[in-house]
């Protein structure tokens, strides 16, 4: 088990390094191809050549890519100093650099927004896992009945309807018409009740989409598992059907659900862009959208790396849980 853990950790570090390398490479190349000098992005096109040269010096934009990458990497883990003349600015680890727009370090911007996104993703995940798995199982057990067909039709609708549709409709009904819930984001620290009220619709909207996918996945997996020989063995022992389903079938059904959950949660940490935009939640997704609009490469780079990191870490957790669930993984 320890060897497995070490192997997995090693793989994670390697993956992250590759992700950083590729991402950095892309963001280094883009300015070259588009002909937009990053230095002018910082100081503005109208600035004089001297100011541009100064910023170039300060950020090391003239250095070879290898040096720049090394500096970036070091900044991520140890922080780095930006020096121009006698003037030195320290960017503490993890240093993703400075925003083109407001010349603020990027990491604090990300950490400000991360809790919003985590709150959204976590709450929604709780809803969709419970909702999706339960409906999926009931559908599998009642395969072919009216219940099954109705639920699967609703699930199909859930998969096909975009969030900006379900989100806007639900906002219009439950917030503007009925005034049951808040339509804006409140910090949890300011007023937990109001925070909750403002999060209900985003949670439900996001969860509806995912619950639909999870219900379909759970149903399909459960049906497959129910056909397994060991389920027949469990019945042949004289076990009650709830035990056969709840213990023997569930254990196997949860494995793929867990895999997908890890991926989805990891990806959502990078921001539920549509949900955050629809409900005006100041999360990472919104920051990413704004950064794309302003071509704020360092911010995009930061969000990208954070997302990739979250996916990789989520996968690691899933893999470790796998080993707990499936004894065959431990040895192979």
């Amino acid at each position, binding site marked *: 088990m320890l060897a497995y853990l070490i192997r997995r950790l090693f793989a994670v570090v390697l993956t992250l390094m590759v992700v950083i390398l590729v991402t950095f490479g892309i963001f280094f190349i883009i300015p070259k191809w588009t002909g937009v000098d990053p230095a002018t992005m910082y100081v503005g096109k109208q600035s004089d050549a001297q100011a541009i040269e100064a910023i170039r010096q300060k950020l090391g934009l003239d250095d070879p890519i290898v040096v720049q990458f090394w500096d970036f990497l070091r900044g991520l883990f140890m922080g780095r100093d930006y020096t121009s003349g006698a003037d030195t600015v320290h960017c503490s680890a993890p240093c993703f650099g400075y925003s083109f727009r407001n010349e603020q370090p990027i990491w604090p911007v990300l950490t400000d927004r991360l809790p919003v996104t985590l709150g959204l993703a976590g709450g929604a995940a709780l809803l969709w896992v419970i909702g999706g798995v339960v409906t999926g199982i009931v559908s599998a057990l009642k395969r072919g009945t009216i219940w099954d067909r109705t639920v699967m039709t609703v699930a199909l609708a859930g998969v096909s309807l975009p969030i900006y549709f379900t989100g806007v409709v639900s906002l219009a009904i439950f917030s503007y018409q009925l005034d049951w819930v808040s339509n804006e984001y409140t910090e949890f620290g300011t007023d937990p009740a109001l925070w909750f009220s403002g999060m209900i619709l985003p949670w439900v909207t996001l969860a509806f989409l995912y619950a639909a996918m999870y219900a379909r996945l759970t149903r399909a997996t459960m049906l497959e598992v129910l056909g397994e*020989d060991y389920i027949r*063995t469990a019945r042949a022992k*004289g076990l009650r059907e709830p035990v056969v389903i709840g213990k*023997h079938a569930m*254990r196997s059904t949860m494995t793929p659900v867990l895999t997908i959950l890890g991926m989805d949660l990891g990806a959502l940490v990078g921001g539920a862009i549509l949900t955050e935009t629809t409900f005006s939640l100041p999360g990472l997704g919104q920051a990413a959208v704004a950064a794309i609009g302003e071509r704020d490469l360092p911010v995009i780079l930061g969000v990208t790396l954070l997302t990739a990191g979250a996916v990789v870490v989520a996968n690691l957790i899933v893999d470790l849980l796998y080993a707990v669930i*499936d004894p065959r993984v431990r040895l192979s």
Partner: protein
Amino acid sequence: MTTESTPGAGGAVSKADGRPSTGAVTKASGRPARRAGAVGEPTTAGAPGTDVFLDVRDLKVHFPTDDGLVKSVDGLSFQLERGKTLGIVGESGSGKSVTSLGIMGLHTVGQYGRGKARISGEIWFDGTDLLAAHPDEVRRLRGREMAMIFQDPLSAMHPYFTVGAQIVEAYRVHHKVDKKKARRRAVELLDRVGIPQPDRRVDDYPHQFSGGMRQRAMIAMALANNPELLIADEPTTALDVTVQAQILDLIRDLQTEFGSAVIVITHDLGVVAELADDILVMYGGRCVERGPAERVFYEPQHPYTWGLLGSMPRIDRDQTDRLIPVHGSPPSLINVPQGCAFNPRCPYADVPADNRTRTERPELKEVGSRHFSACHMTQEERTRIWTEEIAPKL
């Protein structure tokens, strides 16, 4: 030649097939008197000196599908005495496994939604008609009074639970004992079926066992509650040849020790030759021949049985002699051939006069002591063909 069945012939078919239709489950209490008119049914059941505790009568298991009704088992009857072994032999799709799952009641539990099996007939197990009993009553018998071992022990054991946990579970469903006691029982059983270091291996997972050991563990699980009846569905098919004999020996030893009756389901006559007291040959969901093992082996009375015997490789046979295979493939269970289901593959289909093999379904007839065969040929014809044409080539 196309065989249009005339109204008269059609009538004959349905009449011959017109056993007292049990249809819905009989609500008789206790053991019903043997019904008259069940053509070809043996009359030995319940006779003095016998101890029949499993009595299957006119069992039908049909599955509705989009293509039509699959008649997997279509009117099967047999008896089994305490402590005896019955071998059910036939090709894939002949209804062997469906029969065993039917006895275990595994067609009715866990069949969700559409495609439920339609089962009729009677299965008397120690005074209870399993098909009329409440599902929960059958569930309580399952695992305790009747247990089953399956073909592929790897897929038949849950990969996520230890072997010990699965045996403990089987024991604790029917016995209110604490986990420690049940674990001791599991170790004891593993020891009994020949697993080395059982106190250590009890905590292993199925994938850590070899194929033969897994099947031993399956047997331990099945025997956890001292069942009256053990059904072994192709118990050696998935195993190495060297292990097969060991498992068969084990089953035989344990049968003597535990006193269970055993039903061995197999396509391999070699397996039943090792184990069975009686043999039942199935074809197309029906019994075509049934009798004491030595009679079925030495005086088989059905062309299909001849085919099975002829397909069995034997070391003492001259290698220049070819095997005698059964040509063609098993019948469709949706459109079972008219008349005798075996007629399209039977080399002797034209021996009986007036095309009867293709119009009239043969019923089981007694051809010797406790020996039954469903064939239109006369006994003289069968005896002549067997002794002159078949037996010399085997």
